C-alpha cells in the first residue's frame, strides 16, 4: 500500500505544513488504516501491509514503507534507531508528525538504536514494548508477533520491493569472515530483552536530562 492511501497528502508530500487536498468520499473509498511502523505493532484486525491479520499485535508488516529519516509522510511512521536524538530514539513508532521519527520502517530485527538509553540495543523490542503498553492502557489484548524479535532482515528482503536499510556504514547483518551474523544479532537481542526494563526507565528520564 502506498503512503498516499493513508490520506496524508499527495506526492510530493507537504507533510504537516500545508493544507490537505481532500477528495469527495465515495462508497468505494477505503477506510484508512492506522499507521504503524512494523510487524507486531498493529492495533487492529486487518491493519498490516497485507490486510490479513486477525488481531492486535499480529500484523505481518508496516502499513506503509519509507526509506529513512525525514522521508516519512505521517505521524506514527517513524521506525527510529539509526538517526535522530536520544529522545526520538526512545519512542520508535510514536513520532508526532510527518518527516519526524528518525528512521525507516519496517524495523528489521537486527536494527539498533544509535542514541539514548537504547543505544546498541534492539529498536523493534522497544517499539513492541511501547505498543503493548499503549494497548494495555486501551484495555486491549495483544497477540504474539509473527516473529518474536521483529522481522528479520533476510525475511524482509524476500518481500515484494525488497528492503533497503539506511546509512553509510554498511549492512547491519554482515560478517568480515570472523563472526556469525546470526549469533551477533541473537546476542544483541538477548541483551536488549534482558535490559528492556532498565532501558524504559532510562528513556523515561531522558526528557529530564540537561
Amino acid at each position, binding site marked *: 500500500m502506498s503512503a498516499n492511501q493513508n490520506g496524508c497528502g499527495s506526492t510530493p508530500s507537504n507533510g504537516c505544513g500545508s493544507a490537505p487536498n481532500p477528495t469527495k468520499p465515495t462508497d468505494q473509498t477505503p477506510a484508512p488504516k492506522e499507521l504503524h511502523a512494523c510487524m507486531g505493532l498493529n492495533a487492529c484486525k486487518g491493519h498490516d501491509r497485507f490486510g490479513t491479520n486477525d488481531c492486535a499485535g499480529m500484523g505481518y508488516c508496516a502499513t506503509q514503507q519509507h526509506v529513512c529519516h525525514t522521508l516519512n509522510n505521517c505521524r506514527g511512521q517513524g521506525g527510529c534507531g539509526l538517526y535522530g*536524538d536520544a529522545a526520538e530514539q526512545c519512542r520508535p513508532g510514536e513520532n508526532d508528525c510527518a518527516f519526524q521519527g528518525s528512521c525507516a520502517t519496517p524495523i528489521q530485527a537486527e536494527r539498533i538504536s544509535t542514541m539514548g538509553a537504547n543505544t546498541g540495543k534492539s529498536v523493534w523490542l522497544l517499539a513492541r514494548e511501547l505498543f503493548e503498553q499503549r494497548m494495555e492502557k486501551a484495555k486491549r489484548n495483544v497477540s504474539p508477533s509473527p516473529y518474536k524479535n521483529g522481522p528479520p532482515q533476510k525475511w524482509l528482503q524476500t518481500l515484494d520491493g525488497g528492503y533497503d536499510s539506511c546509512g553509510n556504514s554498511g549492512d547491519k547483518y554482515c560478517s568480515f569472515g570472523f563472526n556469525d551474523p546470526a549469533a551477533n544479532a541473537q546476542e544483541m537481542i538477548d541483551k536488549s530483552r534482558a535490559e528492556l526494563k532498565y532501558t524504559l526507565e532510562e528513556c523515561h528520564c531522558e526528557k529530564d536530562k540537561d
Partner: protein
Amino acid sequence: MLSKFLASQPTEVTPENFSEAMQQAIEIEIATIPVYLFTYYSINRTPDQNHIGQIIKTQLLSKEKKPGVLYTQQEVDTIAKELSAKIMVFANKAGASILSVVIEEMLHMSLSSNVKQALAGKPQLVNKVPPVWPAYLPGHEPSFPINRAKLSFDQLYTFMQIESPNKLLEADKKGSPLPYTTIGQFYGFIEDCIKKYFKGAESYDSRRPQLVPKMGYYAQNDIDTLYYNKEHKPKFENAEDSGDLIHVIDQASALKALNEIVEQGEGHHGPGFKVVGGKDCVDCQRFGEGAYDDKKRSELAHFDKFNQLWCEMQQLDDEFKHYLGDDFDPKTLFINNFETNPNTADYPDIIQKVSNLTNAVSSYLYVMTEACYSAEQNTQYEIFMFGIHKSMMWILGSLCGELPNMNYIGKDGLQYQAAPTFENYVFSASSSPKAQIIDLFNIAASAYPNISYLKDRIYDLPNVPLEGYLAKSEQAILA
C-alpha cells in the same frame, strides 16, 4: 565577502570589534567543513571485500614467502581474509571518524553563531566557504596550506595542524598584532573580552532567535558515525555527552559555548604533535589525558581522532608491505581517485551540471541555517528536520556518492573520478534558492538521469528565502 577581521591586524578583541571577531570565528569553523567533507567523500566506506580479497590473493600468489618459497593456497586464503577485513574495518572507521568531526564542526558554527547573535547580532553564514584553494586559516601562525584532498597521510596531518592543541613549530616568526597559534588561542582572546566587558545579563539579547539544545539538530551519533569492528560489532565514534547546542543568555553560557568548541576540537591538554629533530611529528605512542572530550571519556578530541587514524593507516600500510612489498598501496582499495582542489568550471559538461547542483544544495545548507537566526522555534525545527537533515543525508549525500562514478581527464592528463567541490553557489535574488535548485536539478537530471530519483526529495525541500526581506507574503516554508 569573507571577514577581514584578522587581516586588519587588530591588537585585541574589544567590544568595538567583537562582532567582527565572532564572525571571523564562525568563518574559521565554516572553512573546515568542505575540507573534511571532501576527504570524507573520498572514502569508500563499504568496499567489496570479495573483490579486495581477490586482488590480494592475486598479488600474494606472485610473491615469495621467503626466497624460493611460495605461499600455499591455504596461506593465501588466510592472509587475504585477514587483510581484507582490516581494510573493511579501517575504511568504515575513517569515514565514521571524519564525519563525526564534521557534525561537531557544524555544531561549532552554530555555537559561535549563538554567541554572536546574543552579543552582537545576526551571524552571516552564506557564501563563506573559502573561494580559493589551497586555503589558509586567516591570521593563524604559522600559515599552512589547507587542501580539499582525498584521504592520505598528508591530509590527516593537515587536519591535525588545524586542530592542534599546541602551537605549531615556526609559530613565532611573523608576529602580527593579534597572532594566534591555535584555534583554541583565538577563542581565548574572545573569552578574555567576554570576561572583561560582557559581565552583566543586560549585554545579552536572548530575544534574538538562537539554535537551542535538546532539539536533535546535531545528534552526536547516528548510523553514519559508527563503524563495525572485525567481529562486526558496532563501535560509536561520538559520545552522547560530548556537547549539544547552548542557548547563550549570559556570560556563563557564552563562555560555556566557547569552551565546548575548544574542548571538542583541540582538547585543552592534549599531547599534540611530538617534536622530533625540530619538526612536528605524529606521535603514535599513546593518547594522553586530554585526548578525550566527554565526561565518560569515551570520545577522542578532533586532533586525536585524526592522530589515531594516521597511526592506524600507517599500521595498515606496514602490514600490506610485509606481505606485498612496497609497490602495492592498500589505500587504492578504498580511496577514490580524486584530484586535489578541483573546480566545477574545469569539469566536463555533464559532470559540471551535477557539480553545480551539488554546490547549490551544499550552499543551501548555509542559507537554511542562517535563516534559523531569524525564525521562531517551530520554523527552525521544520527547517532543520525537513531541510538541513534531508539535504545532508538524502540529497547531498546521494550526489556526493554519485559523482565519483563519473571520470574525467585532468589538466595533468591523468584520469580522475569526479569529486564534490563544495564551492559557494551564489543564488540569484530573482527567484527563491529552492526554485533555482529545482532548475539545476532538471538540467542535471536531463544530462545524467541516474540522479532522477532525487526529484521528490528536492521538491520536498523547505522554501527558505535568501534573506528574510525577500520572502513573499504568506510564503510557506514547507511549500
